[in-house]
């Protein structure tokens, strides 16, 4: 196999296994490895790719597809994506399978009940983290609250909501309600 592809695997597969808590945890390490250690790209190029990753659907770790593309074209993108998702998925697979084998046991039931409050706390904390990262303003908070209400009370289609919010923001921009500096 191409040396560049092996390099991509050697960088991303270990990071996959230590990405506890999700992709945000390893973005700094990805930058360090690809920019400082391997000199595959410059800091500015990395910042551009990071902006694209945030715009694209899917997890933030998807940035490795762009890095892989940058290093070795399509196959680089594919190999990097597999390297970042496969190792962690194997851990999740074995964990979840063991969990499933113990279905119906009383201790499992207690653990499931016990996990609910923690999951609820994590969900709200995640929403706040996104608001903080996006420097969300009052308009953003109002729209988030309105969307929460719409999703809670109606069965409105996700695409319709996405297109609706995009159109609303475009309208606010042209009416000069939304500031240019985001």
């Amino acid at each position: 196999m191409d040396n560049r592809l092996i390099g991509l695997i050697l960088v991303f597969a270990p990071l996959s296994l230590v990405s506890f808590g999700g992709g945000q945890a390893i973005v700094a390490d990805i930058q360090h490895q690809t920019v400082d250690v391997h000199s595959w790209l410059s800091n500015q190029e990395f910042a551009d790719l990071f902006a694209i990753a945030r715009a694209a659907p899917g997890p933030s770790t998807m940035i490795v597809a762009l890095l892989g593309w940058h290093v070795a074209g399509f196959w680089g993108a594919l190999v990097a994506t597999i390297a970042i998702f496969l190792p962690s998925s194997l851990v999740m697979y074995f964990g979840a399978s063991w969990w499933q084998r113990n279905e119906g046991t009383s201790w499992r039931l207690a653990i499931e009940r016990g996990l609910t409050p923690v999951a609820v706390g994590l969900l709200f904390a995640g929403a706040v983290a996104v608001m903080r990262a996006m420097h969300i303003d009052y308009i953003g908070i109002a729209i988030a609250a309105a969307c929460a209400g719409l999703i809670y009370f109606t069965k409105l289609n996700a695409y319709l909501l996405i297109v609706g919010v995009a159109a609303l923001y475009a309208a606010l921009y042209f009416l000069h309600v939304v500031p240019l500096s985001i």
Partner: protein
Amino acid sequence: MDSTEKPRVPLSSVLLIFMRIGITAVGGGTAAWTHRELVEKHRWITDETFTTGMTFSQVLPGANPVNLALYMGLQLRGGIGGTVAVLGFVTPSFCAIILLGLAYNWLSVYPLTSIILGGIAALGVGATLSVGIKLSRHLRAKAVPILIALATFGAIGVMQWPMIPVVAVAVPVSVAYAFWLERKRRHG
């Protein structure tokens, strides 16, 4: 396999649903859209299974939405279901990010791009809040679970403490309480 208890979901449905979730996974509302499809719409997954999968996918290494897709796929159709769910979820994101990468030089000229992305992120926040409220109903106005949920939120969301140690404390406390409650119920 006990086919009488759990409905056997066709693999093609698993693939299609996760591709759909993959396309809507902009702005971080993935958990909400997954909950909507699997729990609310199709009723293939219970709220308890969903919250367990969510906590697992957040605590174990890996991107949370990918782990969540894998867990749900495993629940629906075992190993093959998990594989199909992950492939279904990741493929649209992979294609989209490559296309965006190619179009970036052209798109980044327009300030409108980042404005619209800000709006979509707000929608993602709203979707997450909505599923948080839905799952909160399972706390059933009991003081201890509500306190644990608030403490978890406060530590990570407000204090910005690292997630892993907070979860490592909150989960044992919460599970021990659930055990104690169950024993009390059984022994009068």
